[in-house]
């Protein structure tokens, strides 16, 4: 009897824990921050207009950060790179597109292992490295 009630309580606690996690399918639309917040963390505007040159500098910055470039597309403005860290895969995509007549918008997003990177700090580090390589200031986008 005692054994039975123990089993029952363990199953009960476990089901509470599992109910807390959403169904794994919901991961498709999951994000810990709002769309606006994420965009503001992951994007910066630069006073430059040459998209090709910007993309080349981003590629070289990613290489400085120890990334191996997986693919790039000038027409779409996308660059994807990966890096192995502590036996985990860090994967990152950077998109470049014109913003108005005088600026380029750079947006990055990254995942580490099975987790999305949604903190501001790593992206700030990336844009700091990019600023240095470009000799330009990154502007926060509203």
């Amino acid at each position, binding site marked *: 009897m005692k054994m039975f009630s123990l089993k029952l309580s363990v199953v009960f606690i476990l089901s509470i824990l599992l109910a807390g996690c959403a169904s794994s399918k919901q991961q498709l639309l999951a994000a810990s921050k709002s769309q606006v917040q994420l965009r503001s963390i992951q994007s910066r505007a630069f006073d430059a207009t040459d998209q090709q040159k910007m993309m080349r500098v981003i590629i070289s910055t990613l290489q400085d950060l120890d990334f191996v470039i997986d693919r790039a597309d000038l027409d779409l403005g996308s660059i994807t790179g990966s890096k192995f860290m502590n036996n985990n895969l860090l994967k990152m995509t950077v998109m470049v597109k014109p913003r108005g007549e005088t600026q380029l918008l750079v947006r990055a997003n990254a995942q580490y292992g099975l987790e999305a990177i949604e903190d501001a700090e*790593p992206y700030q580090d990336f844009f700091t490295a990019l600023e240095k390589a470009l000799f330009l200031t990154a502007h926060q986008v509203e």
Partner: protein
Amino acid sequence: MKARYGILLITPRASNYLKMIKNRTWVKSVSFLFLACFIGCASQYPKTVLRLSPVSLTDKQLQSRQYETDNEKEIIAACAGVLQDLGFTIDDSETQLGLVVGSKDRNAIDAGQVTLATISTIFNILNNAPAGDDLERVDRSQKIRASVVTRPSSDPKKILVRVTFQRLVWNARGEVARRETLKDPSLYQGFFDRLSKSVFLEAQKI
């Protein structure tokens, strides 16, 4: 071992059951699940993942060379040629950005590692211990990836070439045993020696 049951101790009555349940595997698996749940919730990545490391300049020097030409396409073609010489297949390229990416799948069996695993298994058997899974944990296959990027140097008559290699190693069970960026200088030296030769061969249309 005690720490494994730590969560159960939260309920005061649970401690009474501890003796009774100590050897039951379902308890072990449940406590493992508990731990997994908690680990899954914690943020795991280091906050400095995208910070420039102090060795990045040394790496850059190791991975880069300059070639005296103003024709970037010619250099990219030569790089693709070297990758093919080395048995890589081209996965992706974007000539307007100076990028060629290739990979190859190869054997990763290391005779020394297999010998050690065999000795340890035999030793276990001789000592009447379970044979263990050392032989299943030895490296079996690997995927080596190379990414070559060219860009015009500050000197308009020169083109900079930077190559990076990484590899994924699987063990005999099919699990990923290692992921690593290759930093061995001789690998990079070998690549650039072949690239110099390739530039020459391409120029001679061979």
